[in-house]
């Protein structure tokens, strides 16, 4: 995105005197949100995933996620390592996010020592049995959607922009997403996902935000509820750390094989 245009859009945004189209306004909000997340360099977090079925029965998965911020036109990289369930221990997933094309993703199966490339066609499928799809947990690059500003609304006492975004990838499982982004910090507090039949499928709530390095806001809890099945999944983030000095060699196909 041309920086001058971005800056111009942001100036326009602050002033209601100019007539911006809802699309331009939506894009400007998305770009500002993305900008506020820049510069984290790398991150580490422990993740507990709790799957809850219709009857309230829970099963848990533990994983660790390392992230490396992309430089320039490069997208972010991430490495996810599974600790539980115990039969899945050592399974690891490497993702190279791309802005303009589909992500590259590889899965390491420790029993066979086999690294398998995952088809991007899979992105709408459930991620490890949860209510999150692969595309929900991947890095949300601005270029992956087109945007439209809908309205202002208050959510939990916070002033929010309500934004519609439409995935550009034809393999997305969604026709649109509606997100509530707070005006103060540009955090996505709530997202509604509409399926291919344009009916409401899921709602994501991001809660208990904490700020790291005086800049980066991350939720401590993300809850995805599937309205059509009654199932839900909770993601609990623990021990976030940023700028810990992770290197590129920790995000390669060979590193997958030694991920522990």
């Amino acid at each position, binding site marked *: 995105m041309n920086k001058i245009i971005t800056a111009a859009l942001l100036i326009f945004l602050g002033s209601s005197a100019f007539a911006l189209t809802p699309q331009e306004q939506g894009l400007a909000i998305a770009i500002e949100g993305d900008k506020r997340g820049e510069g984290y360099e790398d991150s580490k977090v422990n993740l507990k995933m709790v799957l809850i079925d219709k009857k309230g029965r829970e099963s848990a998965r533990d994983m660790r996620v390392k992230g490396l911020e992309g430089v320039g036109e490069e997208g972010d990289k991430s490495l996810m390592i599974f600790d539980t369930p*115990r039969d899945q*221990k050592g399974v690891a997933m490497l993702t190279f996010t791309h802005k303009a094309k589909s992500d590259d993703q590889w899965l390491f199966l420790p029993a066979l*020592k086999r690294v398998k*490339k995952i*088809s*991007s066609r899979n992105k709408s499928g*459930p991620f490890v*049995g949860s209510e999150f799809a692969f595309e929900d947990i991947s890095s949300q690059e601005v270029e992956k959607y087109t945007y439209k500003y809908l309205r202002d609304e208050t959510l939990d006492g916070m002033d929010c922009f309500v934004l519609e975004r439409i995935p550009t990838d034809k393999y997305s499982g969604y026709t649109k997403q509606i997100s509530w982004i707070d005006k103060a910090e540009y955090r996505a507090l709530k997202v509604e996902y509409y399926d291919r039949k344009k009916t409401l499928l899921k709602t994501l709530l991001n809660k208990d935000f904490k700020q790291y390095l005086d800049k980066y806001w991350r939720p401590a809890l993300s809850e995805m509820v599937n309205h059509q099945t009654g199932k839900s999944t909770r993601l609990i983030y623990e021990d976030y750390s940023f700028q810990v000095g992770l290197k590129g060699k920790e995000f390669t196909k*060979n590193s997958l094989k030694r991920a522990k």
Partner: protein
Amino acid sequence: MKRVSNININKVAFISAALLSATIVQADIAIDSQLDYEVTGYFADSAGQNQETQRVNNSLALEVEVFNSWNDGDESLTFKPFYRIDEMDDERSHGDVRELIWNKVADDYELKIGVGKVFWGVTESAHLVDVVNQTDGVESLDGEEKLGQPMVQVLLEREWGNLDLFVLPYFRERTFAGKDARLSAGLDYADAVYESSAEEKHVDVAARWSHYWEDLEYGVSLFHGTSRDPFQTGLLTADGPEMFTYYAQITQLGIELQYLNEGWAWKFEGIHRDGMPEGTVTILAADPSGSLNTDCLTCVASNPYPGLDHTGVGEGKSYFATAAGFEYTQVGIFESRMDLGWVAEHIYDSRQENASVGAFEHDVLLANRWVANDEADSELLVGVIYDYEYEDYSLSIEGNTRLFDGLSFEIEARVFSPSRDNVTQYSLRDEDLVKMTFSYYL
């Protein structure tokens, strides 16, 4: 004749364990164990050679992994001993060091020294290019369980791809089911014979370069040394019939390709291998005059190609083999969260009827893979391998699910329907089986 390699390996395992526990006293050691209980039921189609043998077999296996890392994770040691006790088959009651390997990650290279395991390849039906580790043949029918391989491995990861270089200083013999066991040839095994005078101490070398471009993954590999696939044939000795196992010196070039496009995964593996002797397995086909006797085994050892031509062992020849096909995945079929994969692969061996035991000469794999995407990670693979020349087939069903965190369940069923023309498969006709495995993670 019993082979002694397993006993040696047990000793190695024990000594290694002792050394490991003595030298590493850091508190950072992670220990994980997996205990498998397996019960197998066999169903005979008709009274066959194994009609007297057991119908139900129990087996227990334990695999432990001890892992320790230091230097901020740049150095690590992994020790993974394995032991199985089998009710029926003494040859299957065996131990192995699956891994005992030191791994060092430097800025521009990675080094692994010890006993390790690597996997090469992309196809599902046959693993042609995968030649580093020997198959632990008594473990599973699909040949996917491997014995630990002593190695020095250097890994380079660059802009132009990944290059892995191997020196493999010691060879492991394939394991085979015992004479009276199920899924055996019904023969004792003579001591293995090697083409190389260095026998199992021949130093093998291998290299693999792999890279990707967009959704195309590709790899080229080279191997020179002792063939992991043996040449086998029945032999009539003074002690009666025995299985003769011969390990030739080979040079293999392997190619792997995988292209992902929309829901399709197109896969290809091909090898060109030079040095394998050809011949059909003609059980008890040795000279009826009985000119072969036990002494002859020594002469085989001293001369790679003695007067054994009448049993089918000949000069090393070159051949090629391919496995090619696709897997098409339908994501979320029937508006459910289930995925359905359609697998079709064709396997070809240019030696045709002279191919080695266990090779697919002209076969087709057709399979359906069901992935439930549920909290128990349930999967089901239903497949048939059909040999369109011999017109025989084998059906397989493999399913797995998690009962709770720490206990998994796996089921495998096989039905063999070999044709009378297919000598190597015909002995399996009464070996239809259902196997259930409970895996407990400690």
